[in-house]
């Protein structure tokens, strides 16, 4: 009998979970390092088009973001027409110039000539709105722009 009992005990060992926190912490640190906090909460639909002639937009602190697109599903009361988003709010065309000038002012003086405006425009937006934004930027003399895209084959755009 004693032989049987011993066998039963050996077949059900307790798995130690002591190293589980270590594994999870490792994952946690990876995500903490590899990810960047989203600065603005998106309130417009923002599915970027794809392109392959792209350049990296590094130096996060030298970029001004302008979003445009249809209001996302939570903001249906605003309508379905594509809108501009500056910071966390919907904005009109005439708000772009003050916004850009304010953003330029908030950056250190030596960085000001190198600022880039990143246009994050939803792919279904009409060019009319984009053209109007570009016109406002020209008037504000903020000439360096970047059409932010995802990378991929452009032929995926035309279907």
């Amino acid at each position, binding site marked *: 009998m004693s032989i049987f009992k011993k066998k039963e005990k050996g077949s059900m060992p307790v798995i130690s979970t002591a190293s589980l926190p270590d594994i999870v912490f490792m994952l946690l640190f990876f995500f903490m390092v590899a990810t960047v906090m989203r600065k603005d909460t998106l309130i417009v639909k923002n599915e970027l088009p794809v392109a392959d002639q*792209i350049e990296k937009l590094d130096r996060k602190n030298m970029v001004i973001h302008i979003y445009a697109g249809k209001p996302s599903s939570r903001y249906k009361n605003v309508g379905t027409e594509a809108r501009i988003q500056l910071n966390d709010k919907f904005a009109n065309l005439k708000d772009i110039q003050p916004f850009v000038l304010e953003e330029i002012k908030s950056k250190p003086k030596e960085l000001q000539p190198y600022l880039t405006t990143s246009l994050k425009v939803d792919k279904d937006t*009409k*060019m009319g709105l984009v053209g109007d934004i570009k016109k406002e930027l020209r008037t504000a003399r903020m000439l*360096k722009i970047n059409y932010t895209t995802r990378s991929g084959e452009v032929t995926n755009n035309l279907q």
Partner: protein
Amino acid sequence: MARRLAPEVNAGSMADIAFLLLIFFLVSTTIQTDYGISRRLPPPPDEIQPSALVKEKNLFRVEVNQLNELFVEKKPMSLKDLKAAAIAFLDNGGGIGKESCEYCKGAHNPKSSDNPSKAIISLVNSRETSYETYIAVQNELVAAYAELRDREAQRLYGMSFGLMKDHFNDPNYSGNKENLKTQIEEIRSLFPEKLSEAEPVTASL
């Protein structure tokens, strides 16, 4: 009694705490995806000096209408042919004498552009064109310039233009940066990016 004196701290909930933090970071962060086509806008309209007249043959008209259809020189074209057409136009080198282009490998058609430095691509879009199509067209035109510059950089310096730019932006690059800068400028001047964008048209093209 001895067992009571040395109690063990239960570390079982440590995993729960770590999971909670992990999930918070997973949800609240996004992996950086900021890549894009960089362009430079022209200065405000009232600051542009009227430039000299451009010859019709030095102008490459690209139009995208409200139905997202592409027209090149008034003729319909599919997007996949646009890059080749733009390269053929830029690289044509049909000029003679002072305007001739020694490095051009194009058809030297006298009816097309004289010289890459004279060739202008004009992109016109309708207000109703979708942004997606516009980006696709922009991308193809930028790709045409990139390919020509790559070819020249390969010929003159044995290195692609993209690689030269990467080296220039790389702080660990061991070569001579000043030298590289002049080389990049040189290639840029061989094929200057002359992409004009007119005001979008409201009426149908």
